[in-house]
């Protein structure tokens, strides 16, 4: 090594050591970090960005601090999708969870969006404190509770190796969503149904649930079939479905899938082969209740699509919820139409409330276990969704779902429903 290079190198090393020392000590307010892990590459960006915006807004309203300014709260929005997959990536989600587990300043992990991703990160964070996870969006029931015929026998215990729960969610689950969708189908006069799913934990799970509940209500479920999420088109599949009901098309098609799994293409080919969404109805779960579907399929093709999502219709929101929508519009220069924004707001709200509760009880909010206990103890919280609590499983006690229909190029609320 040349002398000059050696000198430069030594100076850099010493400087970095000094910097590190400064960073560790001093400073009046301690830092608490909250991270979210949501798919922010691909079609899901629209939903994830709405959630992230709502979380930023909630933290800003708390002034970015907690416990009367004793702690500075920092929020980072992590992406768990990769460009290579164009949707959530198991490798990235695992990496995010490991990164969060290793950073002691992180006291809450707000995520995930995809139930399949939660399945990977819950056990990792379960062994790290446990670090509490609050999901704004996971709806697969098996993550928190067993549902007959829909979850595996060893669920949900297999996700919690320490035996202690560390996962809560503000989204009502698919065992209820299936009932809401089945009720909707009955009210639309649907007699025969064809179900397709994307083979993922969430997509197949919600499809199974709809299958079960629709059959129970006397709807004839012709078949449930997985589709190839990367295929160029689905004309052959749709041609098959168009004659599946004794030579004719079924009354409706339900798709259990996240929007980044090529749902727009499925919809396009369905409309090309079987006609518009009044002739053969197209119904989907929360993960297609987003403007990204309409943009991908085109407004004329998407017209008439129904979708349900956990939460309340915006018009049925209470005072806190209405104020949130107004604040969102003012802060981000445009109103949101994504139902998940409301859930994102309450996710951050729950995390901040837990921190405050720990302080109020004289505890230490840098202690992950204390924060986790406080999250599970949240009762009658006054959130944007209304007054809600977490039950012992970490599920939200509000079971409302909003149903929307695409009208004139956007989802228009149809109403709020209980299962």
């Amino acid at each position: 090594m040349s002398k000059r290079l050696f000198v430069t190198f030594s100076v850099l090393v010493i400087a970095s050591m000094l910097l590190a020392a400064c960073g560790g000590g001093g400073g009046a307010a301690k830092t608490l970090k909250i991270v979210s892990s949501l798919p922010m590459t691909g079609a899901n960006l629209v939903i994830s960005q709405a959630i992230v915006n709502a979380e930023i807004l909630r933290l800003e309203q708390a002034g970015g601090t907690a416990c009367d300014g004793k702690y500075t709260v920092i929020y980072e929005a992590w992406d768990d999708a990769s460009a290579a997959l164009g949707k959530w990536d198991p490798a990235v989600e695992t990496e995010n969870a490991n990164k969060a587990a290793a950073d002691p300043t992180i006291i809450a992990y707000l995520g995930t969006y995809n139930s399949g991703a939660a399945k990977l990160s819950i056990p990792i964070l379960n062994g790290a404190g446990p670090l509490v996870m609050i999901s704004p969006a996971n709806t697969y029931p098996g993550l928190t509770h067993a549902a007959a015929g829909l979850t595996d026998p060893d669920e949900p215990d297999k996700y919690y190796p320490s035996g202690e729960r560390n996962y809560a969610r503000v989204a009502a689950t698919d065992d209820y969503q299936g009932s809401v969708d089945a009720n909707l189908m009955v009210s639309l006069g649907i007699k025969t149904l064809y179900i397709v799913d994307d083979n993922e934990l969430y997509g197949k799970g919600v499809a199974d649930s709809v299958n079960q509940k629709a059959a129970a209500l006397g709807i004839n479920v012709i078949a449930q079939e997985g589709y190839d999420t990367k295929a160029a088109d689905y004309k052959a599949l749709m041609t098959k479905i168009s004659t599946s009901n004794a030579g004719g098309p079924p009354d409706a098609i339900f798709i259990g899938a996240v929007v980044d799994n090529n749902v727009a293409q499925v919809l396009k080919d369905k409309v090309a082969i079987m006609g518009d969404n009044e002739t053969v109805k197209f119904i989907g779960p929360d993960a297609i209740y987003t403007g990204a579907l309409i943009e991908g399929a085109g407004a004329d093709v998407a017209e008439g699509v129904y979708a349900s999502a956990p939460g309340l219709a915006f018009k049925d929101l209470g005072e806190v919820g209405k104020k949130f929508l107004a604040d969102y519009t003012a802060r981000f220069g445009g109103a949101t139409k994504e139902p998940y924004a409301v859930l994102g707001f309450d996710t951050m709200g729950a995390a901040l409330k837990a921190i405050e509760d720990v302080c109020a009880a004289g505890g230490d909010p840098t202690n992950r276990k204390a924060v986790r206990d406080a999250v599970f103890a949240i009762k009658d919280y006054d959130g944007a969704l209304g007054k809600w609590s977490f039950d012992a499983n970490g599920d939200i006690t509000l079971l409302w779902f909003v149903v929307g229909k695409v009208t004139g190029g956007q989802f228009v609320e149809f109403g709020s429903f209980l299962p």
Partner: protein
Amino acid sequence: MKSFFRRFMRPIIAILVIYLVFLLGPIAGLDFPIIVGRIQESPKMLVQFLIIGLANGAIVAIIALGYTMVYGIIELINFAHGDVYMIGVFTALSTLSVTGALTTNNPVHLVLGIVAALVVAMIVCASLNVGIERLAYRRLRNAPRLAALISAIGMSFIVENIGLIWAAQSWLVPSFGTTGGGAQKSFPDLLSKIMISLNLDPNLLASTGLGLRFTIKDLLVIVLASILMIGLRFFIQNTRLGKAMRATAQNRDAAKMMGINIDRVISITFLIGGGLAGAAGLMAGLYNNTAWWFMGFRAGIQAFTAAVLGGIGNITGAMLGGFLIGLLAAFSDGYMDARWTNLWVFAVLVLILIFRPTGLLGEQVGEKA
């Protein structure tokens, strides 16, 4: 002992694979009585699946030509080729947007817009492909084969990311909207629009009362693909340049000694391959109505499979392979379980490669080098 293996290994593997297919087939939807029953019940549907398979296969075949030509001449798998096709889709969509064809209802304007999109997409993709060769492959021509291959994978990622950025430029195409580059974008169904504006049914068989669907989209894809394939075949067989390409593919050094400018011939190969990919891009956009930055990956894998299936390096083989894959996928979607379509496509590939390692129409290409 060794000769015993050499002699019987292939049949043994083949029997194993066939056994597995029949053992596991029913799980993946291969249930002969049901399939035969459904064909007898409605032979019309079989024709319908043939039409869908042919149109999809034509697009795969056109992309496959690019793989097979490049392989034939420099023995390189140009992994970026599928992504060049994706750029073709975006170029076509942007051209249509710039020429105002996306918003008009005037059939003449629409037709002119589509022709312009075809020309621009072919030019852009041809130049891109030549640029990729010049930048990433030419210097590595005498390096170990692996270096060029890795370079090709790298180019594939670079081109994909260009697509990702492109798909976010809503000033260029307003319908890209605000969802960012990652989401699938709508490629409007302009062909049906032309038919409707002329008061015609987009389904050309609607008036026959057969209940079959053969739309203007199927027609355009099949006709355009046939013209391109016949044109390419004529070019390769009957022109001086085509002759030079064949000579270079046969023996590069000998061709050089005969006074053929090898660099130029290789550049022209990439030029033609890229132009075909651009045309395939417009066809796929009009046919499937989606533009997505990642669509080149799957199309590339399918086209590469088609090229291998038909015999890599063989142009007729690539066309045949493309059509076979399209038909097989449509048949599997239609009569078996859509979940397993890829399994069947690749099972057939494995079977054919066991019995005919050179592909269906393959020549022995491994001898030089």
